């Protein structure tokens, strides 16, 4: 799994390449939280374009990041969801608290 974090003002864009399951989620969590601190980020945008697989472990990861960013008054968004993962998201009720956009630009425009 490869994780790249880039900043656009206080929006942290996280591009993950690889599968998200229990095995990979620990390292993923650690990388995100470290970058989030270091860059003093507020909002988080997950770019899902190169994630071919995610199980419910991914829901836990996103919920956890949502909690962290909420404490700073931030929001969490996701872009470029694959159909399989879309269905895991729908089940989880994550859409109630997490925004979904088609592109990173759209997400950047909407997040305050």
């Amino acid at each position: 799994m490869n994780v790249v974090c880039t900043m656009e003002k206080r929006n942290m864009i996280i591009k993950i390449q690889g599968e998200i399951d229990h095995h990979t989620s620990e390292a993923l969590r650690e990388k995100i939280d470290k970058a989030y601190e270091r860059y003093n980020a507020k909002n988080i945008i997950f770019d899902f374009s190169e994630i071919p697989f995610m199980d419910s472990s991914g829901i836990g990861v996103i919920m956890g990041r949502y909690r962290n960013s909420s404490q700073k008054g931030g929001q969490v968004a996701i872009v470029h969801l694959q159909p399989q993962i879309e269905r895991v998201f729908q089940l989880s009720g994550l859409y109630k608290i997490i925004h979904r956009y088609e592109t990173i630009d759209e997400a950047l425009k909407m997040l305050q």
Partner: protein
Amino acid sequence: MQYENEMKIEFMSKSQNEAFARVVVAAFVSQLDPTLEELSDIKTAVSEAVTNAVIHGYENGPGMIYLACRLEGNETYIEIQDKGKGIEDIKQAMEPLYTSKPELERSGMGFTVMETFMDVVEVRSIPGEGTTVYMMKRLHSV
């Protein structure tokens, strides 16, 4: 009864074997020429059950996980077993959002994912002896 094709696998309870288990089941079920969606439903359900064996059954300690897969007509039967801790209250365990390990950022959605993506999910468990999850999915593409 003679199944049309059958395999059984056992592997160590290690988190890197979660992906391995998904690949094994996907490779076996691929013989039926399922749709990509059906295949990813099955992979996701397998991932949930194997992860539960690793995290909850053996609590990240040593142990073996047993997985069986049978193909019969257009039906795929999958059985995932651990000889770990077991579940006291299966009904509660299967409720959406219930998790005994919130400190590990578990979402409590594992069983809900299995039930949504498969046609049948049955759980048998004896505390102190282990847990078996039985799942079946009918492939409409076959």
